[in-house]
């Protein structure tokens, strides 16, 4: 009975287990015969890449934790010991350190793909919101991980970010003291950050499972953004998308390896190779590149509390995105106006990133403010309005029909 699909392992042992715990049947269903839209492009590789990055980060992180000492007097030296004395320690650390950056590259592409193709719309709102939860957890994990080497940037980054909470009226300072476990960022702070940095990835794994469960309930969105209507619209996940994902993974790992072996410190800040000094702030504090757009939003606002609120809002706004976008059409392919403002959003985020990397003086402030303004304008005003005003182009009848139509001229040649 378990042996309905082709290629189901059907030994007596598998049947015995599946009758009691349908594990093989589950994997078979979700990873093998799982019907997937036949028109997915390489933009759909980034979900599985993000999953693989999570595994790489956890494996390298667990091994690094075996050599690392979360004690403020010893943390910096223990990282240097990993770099110099531990066998392949340099490799493990560079994999982990640059892995964080590449994880964010992959996740940001994954998010912008979702924005472009309307993957957050009915019936995938919870899928999208779980994704935003994962993003927030990733940001917290990455921030606390960056503190662990206890260099100057670690220390002052931790000081600045935890001080964001001091903007909260009345209890702000009490909360910051609570976060620190002292009156400055100090050994208790490092200890708890290490504990949480180790814990949160496992929480992420849990949310990722919910994310995949929600995904598999209605299946992947696709470049046309139309629902899957019949068997002609989909193909089994295996071997079609396992092969496509594997090829994408190979290309991605090549890029990853080039960064790890040839430019391991390109994305890092050299000031973090100076041990933490609580009595001297570095000349220029910048967060890691993946936080720069948010950092620029914070600095664009001349009011402390308002800046912090805008910073958090810029991410939290994504939670209500499915309701801000009033258009029933998912894919930007069929939304002429949205397609344009999507690219404006991409540009505004890149500009914010650029401004975040530079000292808040002169033009950087003005340009940063314009980009911040556009970011919020996009989500709060343009999306709800355009959904109502825009006239979408006609949608194809089905995924299968659209794919076969595209194929016709090619076949004629």
């Amino acid at each position: 009975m378990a042996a309905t699909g082709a290629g189901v392992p059907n030994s007596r042992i598998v049947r015995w287990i599946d009758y009691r715990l349908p594990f093989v049947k589950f994997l078979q269903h979700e990873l093998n015969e799982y019907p997937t839209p036949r028109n997915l492009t390489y933009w759909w590789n980034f979900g599985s890449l993000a999953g693989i990055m999570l595994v790489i980060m956890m494996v390298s992180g667990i091994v690094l934790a075996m050599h690392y000492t979360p004690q403020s007097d010893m943390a910096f030296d223990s990282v240097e010991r990993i770099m110099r004395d531990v066998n392949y320690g340099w490799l493990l650390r560079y994999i982990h350190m640059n892995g964080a950056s590449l994880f964010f590259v992959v996740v940001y592409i994954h998010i912008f793909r979702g924005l472009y193709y309307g993957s957050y719309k009915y019936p995938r709102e919870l899928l999208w919101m779980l994704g935003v939860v994962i993003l927030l957890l990733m940001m917290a994990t990455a921030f606390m991980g960056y503190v662990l080497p206890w260099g100057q940037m670690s220390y002052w980054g931790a000081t600045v970010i935890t001080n964001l909470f001091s903007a909260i009226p009345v209890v702000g300072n009490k909360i910051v003291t609570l976060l620190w476990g002292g009156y400055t960022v100090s050994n208790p702070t490092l200890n708890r950050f290490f504990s949480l940095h180790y814990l949160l990835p496992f929480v992420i794994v849990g949310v990722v499972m919910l994310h995949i469960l929600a995904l598999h309930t209605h299946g992947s969105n696709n470049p046309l953004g139309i629902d899957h209507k019949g068997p002609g619209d989909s193909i089994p996940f295996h071997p079609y998308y396992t092969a496509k994902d594997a090829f994408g993974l190979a290309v991605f790992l090549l890029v990853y390896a080039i960064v790890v072996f040839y430019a391991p410190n390109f994305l890092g800040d050299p000031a973090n190779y100076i041990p933490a000094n609580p009595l001297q702030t570095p000349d220029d504090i910048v967060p890691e590149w993946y936080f720069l757009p948010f950092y620029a939003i914070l600095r664009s606002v001349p009011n402390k509390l308002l800046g912090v609120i805008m910073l958090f809002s810029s991410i939290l706004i994504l939670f209500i995105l499915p309701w801000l976008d009033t258009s029933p059409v998912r894919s930007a392919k069929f939304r002429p106006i949205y397609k344009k403002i999507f690219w404006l959003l991409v540009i505004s985020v890149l500009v914010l990133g650029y401004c975040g990397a530079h000292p808040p003086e002169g033009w950087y402030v003005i340009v940063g403010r314009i980009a911040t303004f556009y970011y919020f304008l996009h989500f709060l005003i343009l999306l709800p309005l355009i959904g109502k005003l825009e006239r979408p182009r006609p949608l194809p009848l089905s995924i299968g029909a659209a794919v076969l139509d595209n194929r016709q001229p090619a076949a004629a040649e």
Partner: protein
Amino acid sequence: MAQGAQSQVTPANAHAVEGETRRDFLMLTAGALGAIGAISTIWPFVDSLNPAKDTLALSTTEFDMAPIQVGQRLTIAWRGKPVFIAHRTAAEIKEAETVDISTLRDPQKDSDRVKKAEWLVIVGVCTHLGCIPLGQKQGDPRGPYGGWFCPCHGSIYDTSGRRRDGPAPLNLEVPPYQFTSATAVKIG
């Protein structure tokens, strides 16, 4: 199914079979490359758990034994493990040399275990399950052969550190060492 198809090989479908072997070849070479890649990726992770360079740098210990009196035993640390240095008395040496080694579980002549008969240098870790045998201090139980006695499971060693009784399978290990002068040794 595949076997059934193969049993019906005729010149007419020989081409298909040739395609199959080519696919098999590609699968095998791709699989082999993948396996090599996987192993060479896993190796740095495993090797990182081996002793690091700073740990290996601690692997020799130099010690001057001149202050140790005849009959006295002293423990020093080498790679974090206790090394027993015994300045043996003439009676202890005689006792160690006259044992009929065919009666031992791990037969070894005393002369194979020392560089100079009066100095015995052995790793003080019981070969049963790693406890430190007693016998270094005055008043410690030394067992019936005047050597060492392991309190954990009752292994008994003689004045050459050889296993004489109890569950230990082997004699106490002799570490690699050299005399750097008449009384100074470099262990490791």
